[in-house]
């Protein structure tokens, strides 16, 4: 554990079924503030579903999730307000194609946070500078490369000043030469102390940036631990088998 603080994410006995198919079974895990948790595993292992349960893009079938002290599945919790504290970056970027880059970023602050337009604009430009795309403020998403689009998507999520960032295979849809620029932005974010949950196939990133790596298969957590330990001395046979394929 990287931190002794009260966990900012607490997942207890969460399960998720699509019809008869159980995608998540009995998942429990904690994430501490400022921790970077990397989730790895084969496709279909449930890692993306787990991530999407954290901001209720998927509704868990059972269990309990507490984000920053708020129980997500309790009736009185305002899920919209909780989501605003959780930034999310998608595999397919999901930029809004009808809006310019700048407006993609200011949409949330203006509509949700009710910031004045000027304040939102300053913040957006600052974030674009941070991800190295200041010159693209007036461009439409269609004109961006994959790597640029994903960096804009990260800026869009950060504009809400979230407490936690969720990354759902952020580099999987990118051409190999663009993976680096996105990972670089994520690394910087981690260094600044952002709490991050990252679902990825980038083992190098997991090893270098992750405080903890969690291996999932068939909807269960098989093994977790510090990256170095997990990658070099996996305790479980299935972890070993997976790592031998991807490393």
């Amino acid at each position: 554990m990287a931190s002794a603080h009260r966990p900012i994410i607490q997942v207890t006995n969460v399960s998720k079924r699509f019809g008869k198919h159980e995608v998540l079974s009995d998942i429990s895990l904690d994430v501490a503030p400022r921790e970077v948790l990397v989730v790895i595993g084969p496709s279909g292992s449930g890692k993306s579903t787990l991530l999407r349960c954290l901001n209720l893009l998927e509704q868990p079938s059972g269990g309990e999730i507490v984000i920053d002290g708020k129980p997500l599945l309790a009736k009185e919790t305002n899920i919209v307000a909780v989501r605003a504290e959780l930034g999310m970056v998608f595999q397919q970027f999901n930029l809004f194609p009808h809006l310019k880059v700048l407006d993609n970023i200011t949409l949330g602050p203006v509509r949700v946070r009710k910031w004045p337009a000027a304040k939102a604009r300053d913040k957006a430009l600052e974030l674009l500078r941070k991800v190295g795309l200041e010159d693209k403020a007036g461009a439409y998403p269609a004109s961006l490369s994959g790597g640029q689009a994903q960096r804009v998507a990260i800026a869009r999520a950060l504009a809400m000043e979230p407490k936690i960032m969720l990354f759902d295979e952020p580099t999987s849809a990118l051409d190999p030469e663009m993976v680096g620029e996105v990972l670089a932005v994520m690394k910087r974010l981690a260094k600044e102390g952002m709490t991050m949950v990252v679902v990825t196939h980038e083992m190098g990133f997991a090893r270098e940036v992750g405080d903890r790596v969690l291996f999932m298969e068939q909807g269960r957590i098989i093994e977790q631990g510090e990256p170095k330990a997990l990658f070099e001395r996996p305790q479980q046979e299935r972890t070993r088998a997976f790592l031998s394929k991807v490393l």
Partner: protein
Amino acid sequence: MDFRFDIVRDYLPLLLRGTVYTVCISLASIALGSILGLGVGLGKMSRYWFLRWPMHAYINFFRGTPLLVQIYMVHFGLIPLLYGKTDAIAAAVTALSLNAAAYTAEIYRAGIQSIDKGQTEAALSIGMTPWQAMRSVVLPQAVRRMIPAFGNEFIVLLKDSSLVALIAAPEIMYWSSAMKNQYIRVWEPYLTAALIYFILTYTLNKLLVLLERKVA
């Protein structure tokens, strides 16, 4: 064929006045129908059966019964019930709007469902409510894709508006019919009416192509 241009000339002022009515009735109906249709379409996509079911019934009713029957029902049933007495223009706009709403509801639904789910998810992930996500993210994109279908619906509605002549709304077909009855000649009134409708729909088509090009 003997075609009497003199009686067309006689009736032209009335036919042109009728054209103004046709255009106004159609514009009002497509506008109201589009607003109402959005509600119906969203209702039909709702998670809640008590919204979904009635909207489904609404769409089926208005798409599954003849427009003429709907016009009569509004003119002789709904309007007198609401205002105490009936009125042809109010009935025409109401009936055509209710009918158009059923068709535009399906256009909205198809348009909205054609937008990738990831767009809604991204909007929700930055803290938007489902309604904000719909209004700021999904609808603006969907509406662009809907323009051709909307244009088509508008043209259909403009032509269908000829039916309100039967409740004596003084539009193009109404005056054509008066002209037919005065001279009991068929070709002059109907060909003239057809020409006016054609000019209207042709112009509308051109405008829509321009609009599509501009937005796309």
